[in-house]
């Protein structure tokens, strides 16, 4: 029920964003994430962006995981 999928914001119109989800562009409400910008990734839940996705944090997590996995 709490599923969320990532998508990239390609256009903003008032409180609705056009979001690219795996090649399909959908209208997503940004009422819960009003400060999002074009080019940023958001997490989508039932038609709403509920949080911005931080690309730098994602890269850091992956880097840490690679180091941990290789450290044995």
């Amino acid at each position: 029920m709490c599923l969320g999928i990532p998508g990239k914001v390609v256009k903003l119109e008032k409180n609705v964003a056009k979001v690219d989800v795996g090649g399909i562009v959908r209208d997503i409400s940004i009422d819960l994430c009003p400060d999002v910008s074009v080019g940023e990734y958001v997490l989508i839940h039932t038609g709403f962006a509920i949080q911005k996705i931080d690309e730098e944090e994602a890269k850091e997590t992956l880097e840490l995981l690679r180091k941990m996995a290789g450290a044995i």
Partner: protein
Amino acid sequence: MKFIDEFRDKGIAEGLIRKIRKTCTRPIQLMEVCGTHTVAIFRYGIRGLLPEHIRLLSGPGCPVCVTPNKDIDLAIALSRQKDVIIVTFGDMMKVPGSTSSLQKEKAEGRDIRIIYSSLDALKIAKENPERRIVFLAIGFETTSPTIAVAMLQVKEEKIQNLFFLDSQKRVPPALRALLQSKRLGIDGLILPGHVSAILGTKPYQFISKEFGRPAVITGFEPLDILQGIWQLIQQIEENRAAIEIQYRRVVREEGNPTARSKIYEVFEEDEGIWRGLGLIPNSGYRFKESYKWMDAKNFDVEVEPTREHPECLCGEVLQGIKSPLECRLFKRVCHPENPVGPCMVSIEGTCHTYYKFQ
């Protein structure tokens, strides 16, 4: 970056599993609270990859599964009113009430429609001004802000025919109830990533401060889950108890304050009734004064007396006390095509997940 495939890397997963096996020295029980985690854990075979002395318990984190029978019965009674259209997330259709389900009622000709987003309910209300639309408002903190936005729009656009049957739940008070239960020994909690995207870390601090247990807010890809388990094991081995975030790309310490403010514009905290766990203080909501007219529980309908199947173990499965395999009905009488309890209905229910993957 797609934020999905990168977190499914087999080589890194193997390295993490080796590390977990080497580090965890004692038998421990961890609970994944969230049904989305339960599905991911089974889908990627994570239970089978962990050493035998790390036991994963499935918790009550499926909003469909914890919806009490009486709310389903009320939804069914409302659907039988001629001028009512029921709108609901799809998972609720097959949930058995005392003697019927929304799916059976739809087959009988009631107007019951599946929606993807709370905003679809607004559209249906505008298209059908002569009908009363009742939205089955279920969900945890991930979904509640989206329901609140719909309610705010109803008020702003002066829509008069959209009502909400509220059965939403708040996760932290249920975790408190689980930790207080003497029947369960939980050494650490895998906390739900998307509920926490809204809540942040603060509402969970009691887990470490009052109960001395570690908890890690975890994402849903296999590497996320393995890293979350690894962080818990590290804390347990070091005798630490803190609330940590593994899912850093989505969850911030402060959560999403805008989303939380929407919830509290329309609702106040109130007791909540959970299937299996019973009444838990502050685990639900009530409508604020100026939104009370939207409460579908005000409708004057006769609801049948609530009955539950005497042998269904959903209540104990939801608390992690029993496994679906211990239920006499599992696979024999109760299966996804003929579910007896809600844990077999929801695609994130523990019984459904066991049926599909075990």
